[in-house]
C-alpha cells in the first residue's frame, strides 16, 4: 500500500485518525494489503481483536474486493462485512498534494466505516448453468470459438445473418504475410463446424430477443424464410442457372458481378442450399415466373415458407459479429462514385481472386483492360479525427496494402505500383520483413503523404497528393486507385449491445470487462467477445481471441451452479402498501405481487404485497427509489448505508 499510495497519502496518519472513531477496535497500515502478508494480517487482526467488520483502505474495489472478501471469509467473517475505501485510484493517484490527499483519504475511510457499521451478513444464492453456448456470427471468429467450445464437449449454436457461414475471410484472396489462399485455410474449418456433432448452425438467422442472465439466457432466434427446404435441396444449382432475374449485385463479390434472385453466395458456401432474395424474385414481386419450383428435381422450393422463431436456453453467449468497412462515398475527394477505377481494398480482393468475377485477372472495371499503374491509398477513414472518419488505426490496412502491392508486382512486374501512406505500421511476426520485401525486392514505391483528390485525366486517373519527404505536391498517374477503407464494426453491433446489455464504445466496438486483464469478456456476466467486434485485428489475432473467448465460455459452462449476487432488492412487507410503483421500473420483471397475510399496526390483514424474485433481480436499485413508502430497499446499498456515507462525508 505504501509504495503506491503513500506518495500522496500519509497512510499512517489515516490509520491514526480513524483509530479514535467509536467502534473502531484496531487500525493499522501495511505496505501491500492485497499480498499474502496483508491478508494474513487481516485474518490475525480479526482473531486477536474479535473484529466484526472490516474496512480496507486500498485500491479500487473493482480490483481487489473479491480478494478481501475471501480473506474475511477465511477469518470466519461473512464476506459482505467488508468495505473498501478507494484511496488509490480515487485519491492518491489523482491528487498531488500530500496534505490534501491525506485529508481526503481520511474522509473516504470515515465514509466506509459509517457504511460498514450497517452492513449485514449476506449469502449468495445459487443458479444453475445451462450447458449450451450461443455464438453470434459465423465468420472465422465465431467458427473458431464454436469449434473450441464444441471440442470441449458442450453444445454450441451459431447464428449467422447471411445465407452462409464464412464471413469476411471467405472473401479474401490471400492472407498476409504467408500468402496462404484464404479460402483454402477457411473452408476446412467451415466444414468441421458444419459436421461437428455438438454444433448447430442457423444461417440466414438473426437474434430477435434475449432475456435472462448468466447461465440462464433465453434467446429467440429468427430463422428468416429461405424459401428453399434445406433438408430436400441437393445443391445442384439448376435453379440458379435458370432463374431469369439476374440483376442483383452479388454481396460476396462486393457488387463486382451480379447474381440471380435465387442464389448461393459462393461456391463453398455452407449450407450449400440457395436462398431466394424476395426483393429480386419475380414470383414474390409480380407473382410471375415460378420457374425454379417447376425445374427443381428435389421439389425443394417453398414459396410459402415463413420466418421461424426458435427459442433456446444458453449458459453463455459469445459475440463474434465481425466488421464491415467504411463507406468510401463519405470521402468525396477520392471520387469513388464517379470513377469506376477507384475501388476499395475488399473489391480488389475479389478482383484478384481466382474464383472472383474476372477469374483473378486484374483489369480496370471501366474498360476491362489491364492497368499500367496502380495507386494504393492507405488510411481512408482511419486515423481521421474529423466527423466523417474514425480516429482509430484499423490495424490491418498497412499489411493488406503491402500484400496487394507485392502480389501485383509478382504477377505483373510491368505495372507501376505506388502506395501513399501516413505511417507504415507493421508490428507482427514477419510483418515488417514482408513490407520491406514489397519495397526492396519488388520495387513498390512508398510515398509518405496524404492524397488530396483523385481526378480524371486523359482517360486515366490523376492522384493529387503531398510528398512529405520531398516537401512538394505531386500528381501521380493511375489506371486503378485502391482505397484502404477503415474497419468499422458490424452495423448491428449497437442493436445487439442494447439487446444483451453489453457495453459498447463510441465507435461501436464492444467494450471488454478490463482492457488489460479481461480482454475477451464483456462487463456483462456471461457475454464474451471474439474477433473484430471488440477492435480491429488480423486473422491470427482473431483466432487467438476466439480461442480465449471459448475458454472463458467453457469455464462458465463447466460449472453446475453459479453464485448469484446477494445485493438484491427486498421488501419490508409490513410497510409495503402494494402500490407496485416498483414493478413498473424493474427492467427484469423481477417484481410480482401476491396477496399476503401481514401484520399492520397490530392488525392482521390480507393485502397486496410486492414480491422480489431474487434469481431475476440484478440489484440496480431502481425500485428502491421508486418506492414511496421506503418498503423496498437494496441489500448491500441500503438507504441507511448510503445515507450514512453521505453523513460521514458532509
Amino acid at each position, binding site marked *: 500500500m505504501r509504495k503506491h499510495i503513500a506518495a500522496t497519502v500519509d497512510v499512517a496518519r489515516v490509520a491514526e485518525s480513524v483509530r479514535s472513531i467509536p467502534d473502531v477496535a484496531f487500525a493499522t497500515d501495511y505496505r501491500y494489503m492485497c499480498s499474502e502478508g496483508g491478508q494474513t494480517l487481516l485474518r490475525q487482526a480479526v482473531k486477536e481483536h474479535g473484529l466484526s467488520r472490516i474496512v480496507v483502505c486500498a485500491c479500487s474495489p473493482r480490483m481487489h474486493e473479491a480478494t478481501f472478501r475471501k480473506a474475511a471469509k477465511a477469518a470466519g467473517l461473512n464476506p459482505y462485512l467488508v468495505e473498501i475505501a478507494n484511496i488509490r485510484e480515487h485519491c492518491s493517484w*489523482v491528487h498531488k498534494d500530500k496534505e490534501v490527499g491525506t485529508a481526503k483519504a481520511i474522509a473516504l475511510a470515515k465514509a466506509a466505516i459509517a457504511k460498514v457499521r450497517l452492513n449485514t451478513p449476506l449469502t449468495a444464492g445459487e443458479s444453475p448453468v445451462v450447458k449450451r453456448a450461443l455464438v453470434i456470427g459465423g465468420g472465422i471468429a465465431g467458427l473458431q470459438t464454436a469449434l473450441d467450445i464444441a471440442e470441449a464437449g458442450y453444445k454450441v449454436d451459431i447464428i449467422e445473418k447471411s445465407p452462409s457461414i464464412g464471413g469476411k475471410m471467405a472473401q479474401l484472396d490471400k492472407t498476409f504475410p504467408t500468402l496462404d489462399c484464404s479460402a483454402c485455410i477457411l473452408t476446412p474449418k467451415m466444414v468441421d463446424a458444419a459436421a461437428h456433432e455438438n454444433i448447430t448452425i442457423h444461417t440466414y438467422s438473426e437474434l430477435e430477443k434475449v432475456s435472462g442472465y448468466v447461465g440462464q439466457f433465453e434467446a429467440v432466434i429468427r430463422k428468416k424464410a429461405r424459401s428453399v427446404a434445406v433438408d430436400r435441396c441437393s445443391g445442384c444449382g439448376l435453379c440458379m442457372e435458370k432463374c431469369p432475374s439476374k440483376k442483383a449485385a452479388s454481396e460476396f463479390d462486393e457488387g463486382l458481378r451480379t447474381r440471380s434472385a435465387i442464389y448461393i453466395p459462393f461456391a463453398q458456401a455452407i449450407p450449400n442450399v440457395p436462398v431466394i432474395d424476395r426483393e429480386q424474385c419475380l414470383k414474390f414481386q409480380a407473382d410471375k415466373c415460378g420457374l425454379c419450383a417447376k425445374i427443381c428435381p428435389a421439389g425443394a422450393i417453398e414459396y410459402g415458407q415463413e420466418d421461424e422463431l426458435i427459442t433456446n436456453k444458453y449458459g453463455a453467449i459469445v459475440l463474434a459479429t465481425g466488421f464491415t468497412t467504411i463507406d468510401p462515398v463519405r470521402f468525396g475527394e477520392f471520387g469513388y462514385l464517379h470513377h469506376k477505377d477507384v475501388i476499395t481494398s475488399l473489391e480488389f480482393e475479389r478482383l484478384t481472386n481466382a474464383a472472383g468475377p474476372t477469374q483473378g485477372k486484374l483489369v480496370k472495371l471501366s474498360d476491362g483492360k489491364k492497368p499500367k499503374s496502380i495507386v494504393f491509398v492507405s488510411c481512408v477513414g482511419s486515423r481521421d479525427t474529423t466527423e466523417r472518419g474514425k480516429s482509430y488505426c484499423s490495424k490491418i490496412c498497412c499489411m493488406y496494402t503491402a500484400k496487394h502491392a507485392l502480389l501485383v508486382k509478382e504477377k505483373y512486374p510491368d505495372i507501376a505500383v505506388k502506395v501513399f501512406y501516413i505511417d507504415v505500421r507493421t508490428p507482427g511476426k514477419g510483418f515488417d520483413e514482408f513490407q520491406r520485401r514489397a519495397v526492396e525486392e519488388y520495387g513498390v514505391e512508398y510515398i509518405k503523404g496524404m492524397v488530396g483528390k483523385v481526378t480524371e485525366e486523359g482517360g486515366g486517373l490523376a492522384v493529387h497528393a503531398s510528398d512529405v519527404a520531398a516537401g512538394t505536391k505531386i500528381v501521380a498517374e493511375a489506371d486503378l486507385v485502391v482505397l484502404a477503407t477503415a474497419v468499422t464494426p458490424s452495423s448491428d453491433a449497437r442493436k445487439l449491445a442494447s439487446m444483451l446489455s453489453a457495453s459498447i464504445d463510441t465507435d461501436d466496438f464492444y467494450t471488454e470487462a478490463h482492457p488489460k486483464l479481461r480482454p475477451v469478456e464483456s462487463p456483462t456476466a456471461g457475454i464474451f467477445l471474439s474477433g473484430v467486434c471488440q477492435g480491429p485485428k488480423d486473422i491470427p489475432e482473431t483466432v487467438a481471441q476466439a480461442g480465449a473467448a471459448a475458454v472463458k465460455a467453457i469455464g462458465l459452462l463447466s460449472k453446475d451452479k453459479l453464485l448469484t449476487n446477494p445485493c438484491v432488492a427486498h421488501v419490508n412487507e409490513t410497510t409495503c402498501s402494494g402500490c407496485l410503483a416498483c414493478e413498473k421500473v424493474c427492467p427484469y420483471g423481477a417484481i410480482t405481487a401476491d396477496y399476503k397475510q401481514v401484520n399492520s399496526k397490530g392488525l392482521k390483514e390480507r393485502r397486496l404485497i410486492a414480491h422480489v424474485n431474487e434469481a431475476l433481480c440484478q440489484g440496480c436499485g431502481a425500485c428502491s427509489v421508486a418506492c414511496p413508502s421506503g418498503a423496498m430497499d437494496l441489500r448491500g446499498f441500503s438507504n441507511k448505508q448510503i445515507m450514512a456515507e453521505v453523513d460521514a462525508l458532509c
Partner: protein
Amino acid sequence: MLAEKQSTEQNFEPLIVAFCCNWCSYAGADLAGTARRSYPANVKIIKVPCSCRVNPTFILRAFLRGADGVIIAGCHPGDCHYTTGNYFTRRRMTLLMGLLGYLGVDKARLRVEWVSAAEGNKFAEVMTDFAGTIKALGENVKLRDLRCK
C-alpha cells in the same frame, strides 16, 4: 467536514459529493486514477450500483449536511448496465432540479453527467469543471441546516 471548508471567501474549498454508478462512472474514475488525470480533491465519491439508485433524499440530505455541490455520474443513455436505469435518473433529477430552483437553490449545484468506463479523461474534466462551478457559486448557505451537525 465543515472545518475543512474554512470558509473565508478567498480560499473557499467546496465540499462535493459524487454518486458514481459501479459499471461506468466509478470505473471511469478508476481509469482517471490509473491515467493520473488529476481533479480537485473536493470531489468525494460514493459508489452506487446504478445512477438510478440515487434517491433524491440522499441529495437533499447532502445539501442539508453542508455539501456545496452534488454530482451524479452514470452510463451514457442507451448504455446502462441495467438497460434503463439512467433514464430514470435523468427524469428524477430533472424533477429534483426544478424543486431545488423552487427552494431558491441554484440548480447548478446539482449536475448529472454520463461518463463511461473508458472515459477517464472525461471524468477528470467533468469533476474539475463542476468543482470550478461550485467554487464560483460559493458556499451553500440556503439549504445547509446547522442542526444536522
